């Protein structure tokens, strides 16, 4: 099965440049990518898009990434969606926060593309495994 027939990846970031880079990179690797620029938009489109993986920026105006993660993970239909946080720093407190929000992984910004690639790949793999 070609990758782009598989479940899409939803990238949520308020920075259009960042969105563009991530989308281009992931699409080049054969993933189907959809984007949202606010947490609210992401949530309102979850049902329609049914992503398997959500790449979620932490620092966003309005609802921040933690909040969005929590809402997604507590939704009965989306509990198994993988959530990878994009965070500006990664100290212990941040990671604990991520854990409480239900995140599965994190990537520290600025994003290194090869890291993005491996993280996305392993999370998509984890998705194929039954929980």
């Amino acid at each position, binding site marked *: 099965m070609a990758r782009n027939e598989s479940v899409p990846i939803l990238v949520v970031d308020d920075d259009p440049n960042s969105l563009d880079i991530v989308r281009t990179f992931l699409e080049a690797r054969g993933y189907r990518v959809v984007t949202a620029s606010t947490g609210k938009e992401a949530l*309102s489109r979850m049902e*329609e898009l049914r992503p398997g993986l959500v790449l979620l920026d932490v620092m966003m105006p309005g609802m921040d990434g933690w909040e969005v993660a929590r809402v997604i993970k507590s939704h009965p239909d989306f509990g198994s969606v993988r959530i990878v946080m994009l965070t500006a720093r990664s100290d212990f407190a941040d*990671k*604990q926060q991520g854990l409480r929000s239900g*995140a*599965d*992984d*994190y990537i520290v910004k600025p994003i290194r593309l090869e890291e993005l690639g491996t*993280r996305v790949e392993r999370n998509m793999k*984890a998705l194929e495994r039954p929980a």
Partner: protein
Amino acid sequence: MKILAHVTDDGLREALRASAADLGAELQEVDGPLLDGGRSLPAQADLVVAESGDDENLDRLREVTNRVGSSLLVACHGLEECETAALAGVDDWILLPADRQQLGAQLALAREKAAIMRPRRENERAELLRYEELLYDKLTGLPTLPVMMERARELLERRGELTVLYIHFVWYEKVEEIYGWQKLDDVLATTATAVKEFYAREHIGSENLMMVSHIADDDFILFTELGTTPEIAEQRLRALTQQLEDYLRTRIEELHGEDIAALCGIYVGAGTIFRNPKIRTERLIYRGLREAERAARSAEEWERARKVGELKTTLREGLVFIEYHPIIVTATEEIYGYEALARGTRKELRSPEVLFEVAEEANLVWELGRLLRQRAVEGMIHELKDGQFLFLNVDPKDFDDPTFRDMDPKDLGIDDPSRVVLEITERTAIKDYPRFQEYLAAFRKRGFRFAVDDAGSGYAGLGSIANLAPDYIKLDISLISNIDSNFLKQNLVETMVSFAESQGAKVIAEGVERREEFETVKELGVHLTQGFLFHRPKYAGKPRT
């Protein structure tokens, strides 16, 4: 499917017509803006297609379509309009020029949605849908108090009498602390469902049970009409209250287990309201509510008092038993030591959390701690093989107890304190840190070792772990469950392991239940492991009487 559209873009119109034909949908096109002149057209359509722009008031359109249960698809001339549409909360949008295939897919999706929405729309509740978001509890789907007030008033005026059942749901804070807020939400949802089931089962039926509401995030009220003579009503009410309480408890126990059920309490109180033309109806209803609530809370008080009585008996008669949960060396899978776990013998006090909560309330924490330590040491200290350790749970508050603080280990039957590890959990906040550290130092001098319990659960951050300088760091179960597929947890545990090593401490992974979890913690270098995968808690080899 019926589609109602107002479009000016030619490409969109063409695509729309073609896609509608493909789906066999009925397409109605209008010339002017959709809401012009208070038009109520959207009410008849499953899908409303509008073009973004000055002509249409999207917010208003969304409100109307939401109310009647139609989907709203908005065509946008640019990304900015898409954003506006998204913020307005429209169901779907398409960027112009319209891609025919995409539009086709969107229409198909709307059709699916319509199949679900139509019966609802045709329901007489249509006018209530508008308030749904605000007035119905998201978690349980039950109406909230404002909805109820109106209906209760109607009823009271019609029937002259109304009974309120107040279902007071209490949980020990520990449910959230141990199992997370999601679990508590689950339990609440179970309760709500159980109330509805009870309603169906008891055939209180539409005649008698009027409605259920969910208020103040944890309590429910239920308006009912029991009728007939006051004596019969009173009797029936008491029976109903008891049945409801029992039913809810049973359901929670069935679905979430005895441990969680033990941490939750359900108390039902009743109040009756009679119409009194001299008093404002709302006030009557509120009075009835308060009466019912008071009854429920006093049932709770009574129950608490009874539990305190049980605890006193427990302490006097020594009605506790200790189970020992082995801790193994991750690399060799050999038994490294045993953690003593206390349980009450009385059903209500079987859960250790309840045992301690009740002790806390009754100010009997020290007494309970003494009894449990004594039993824990007695049961195991002579069973330990060379090099094995006994792990004892200690609350920070225990250190305020002089008989614990100043004890001679020999009084407890401990010949070699270095074989004993005191596990400290920070669930009780440590108020006076310097003093606490002094106490710890004194214990350390006598040879005792220390473990920080529940690390990573939010109670014990790296800071406080560094302050306590423990010999062991016990990772909370929330960090371990499904660690094999959660990379964030893996990273956190890795951090903990390297931190522990730099402090000369060992890490213990708690709650390892699956082989994959074990393999993962092993790979991450976790020194010790505890969990059902290898051992369940068990009684000591030779129980002493």
